[in-house]
């Protein structure tokens, strides 16, 4: 039995397949999308060019001196060394406080308590906490953490530990959410395979789920870190010094319990001063902050690519 090839008038097929004209809705939609992208890019570019334009001369004139000088009322001498130290310590304290707590919370919510009503309520509330304005966390920092140090009679309580813990609490919800999402993205099949050969919950979590979720958790951690380093509002409330001051000493204790400030605060402070020179310093401070953020984000991308796996 042979199969007959159906014969169709070739002209009809040709006509039916031919484009009848431009499809306007898709063109318009595509144009709108491209415009959105352009708008975002232009806004960023404008910001970047403006900051570089104003800030770069500070570096060409003073070089590293800007990074190593303390705060001063003389704009030709003022620098960000104290602010760099403050930002450094805030980063360290955030890493020490927020990351273990956040990742552990996420593991508990996803691997141990998943699916219960209480977990769902907690989950929704953590998401809400992530949206709470940062100034509110500043109030918390002032009331609780500064208060604790004050009660313990350590200086006036306004030190970088109180500030760092405040920022750590601020980014904690973000760490929890990103870590929980990374854990959730690990296929259930991997867990089942582990349980199937007689592994306990802890062994499955520790040896299978955590390594698989590691790139995602790491990305969340680094992104929260750059958020933490860029926060000004809560630190102003939690006792960072707005004006210039002399450091309580170069030793560790002096840095940790003495007066402190941080890069975003200094930038903010300088922009409020009347002299034009301080505007330039503010722009230079922004460049330092941007470089730190770019390095952190670059590190996040590098680590994610290095450890990422496909299923």
């Amino acid at each position, binding site marked *: 039995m042979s199969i007959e090839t159906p014969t169709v008038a070739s002209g009809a097929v040709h006509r039916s397949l031919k484009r009848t004209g431009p499809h306007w809705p898709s063109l318009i939609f595509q144009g709108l999308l491209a415009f959105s992208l352009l708008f975002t890019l232009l806004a960023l570019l404008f910001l970047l060019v403006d900051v570089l334009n104003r800030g770069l001369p500070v570096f060409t004139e003073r070089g590293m001196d800007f990074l190593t000088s303390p705060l001063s009322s003389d704009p030709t001498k003022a620098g960000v060394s104290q602010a760099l130290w403050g930002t450094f310590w805030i980063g360290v304290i955030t890493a020490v406080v927020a990351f273990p707590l956040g990742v552990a919370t996420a593991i508990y919510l996803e691997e141990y308590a*998943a*699916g*219960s009503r209480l977990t769902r309520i907690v989950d929704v509330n953590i998401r809400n906490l992530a949206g709470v304005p940062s100034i509110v966390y500043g109030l918390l920092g002032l009331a609780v953490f500064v208060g604790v140090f004050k009660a313990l009679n350590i200086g006036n309580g306004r030190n970088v530990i109180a500030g760092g813990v405040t920022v750590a609490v601020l980014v904690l919800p973000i760490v929890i959410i990103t870590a929980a999402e990374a854990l959730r993205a690990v*296929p259930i*099949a*991997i*867990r*089942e*395979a*582990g*349980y*199937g*050969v*007689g*592994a*306990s919950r802890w*062994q499955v979590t520790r*040896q*299978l789920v955590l*390594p*698989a979720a590691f790139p995602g958790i790491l990305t969340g951690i680094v992104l929260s870190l750059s958020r933490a380093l860029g926060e000004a509002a809560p630190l102003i409330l939690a006792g960072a010094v707005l004006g210039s001051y002399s450091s309580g000493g170069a030793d560790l204790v002096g840095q940790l319990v003495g007066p402190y400030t941080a890069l975003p605060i200094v930038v903010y402070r300088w922009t409020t001063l009347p002299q034009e020179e301080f505007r330039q310093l503010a722009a230079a401070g922004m460049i330092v902050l941007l470089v730190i953020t770019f390095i952190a984000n670059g590190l996040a991308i590098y680590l994610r690519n290095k450890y990422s*796996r*496909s*299923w």
Partner: protein
Amino acid sequence: MADLPPTTDEPIIRLEDVSLFYSSFRAVRNISYPFRTNAITALIGPSGCGKSTLLRSINRMNDLVPGAYAEGRMLYHGEDLYGPGVDAVEVRRRIGMVFQKPNPFPKSIFDNVAFGPRVNGVKGDMADIVEASLRRASLWDDVKDKLKQSGMALSGGQQQRLCIARAIATEPEIILMDEPCSALDPRSTLLIEELMLELKQRYTIIIVTHNMQQAARASDETVFLTMGDDRAGYMVEAGVTSELFTNPKSQLTEDYVSGRFG
């Protein structure tokens, strides 16, 4: 491969009036069946009849589903798997599982097989255990030169044999297989079936399959489940495979095995 476990008439798993629930929903009702030692028993039935639920309840894998619980008795060498004080982790070590989709760990081939013995604190030469397990899963010749490579780089059929090797490595008595060939091509499927026939010398195999030919070809006994009006799965008929396929007692069974429904 000496010292085969003795084949006796004592069933290795005896279900006594087992019903399985997801919260208030009864997925499987009132199943009683003795699973024979060193035999391959196929669980067949239409989609949604609870055969996977039944299979996963045997090594308490369903414990991981919130709200899942069992009624009745599930006796393993006379010991109720759901009795007080029974540790699900210990149960799963003795009753291994191979899943529908090959799910090797994102680790090396060696570490995939060694994972089970390691988490169970097995002492001894891990290389020997890995080699023996891979040999029994007919995978050793394919992978002996690339044990350090990722298990996920293997083909689908090889991945599934790796998963079988991984299950064997903890020396279970029973291997549960949940449609192990549904994601595989016909050639890989045949390899797995041949492997099952070898494995039943040492292990008892319970397999869920949608494939009638597979059940007919590879199993010694067959349990046919279907879904009742209450959407709970129940056992229609069970027994020696050749008998059930050629001379079914129930019209439902005949319709299903001849492909008229399901």
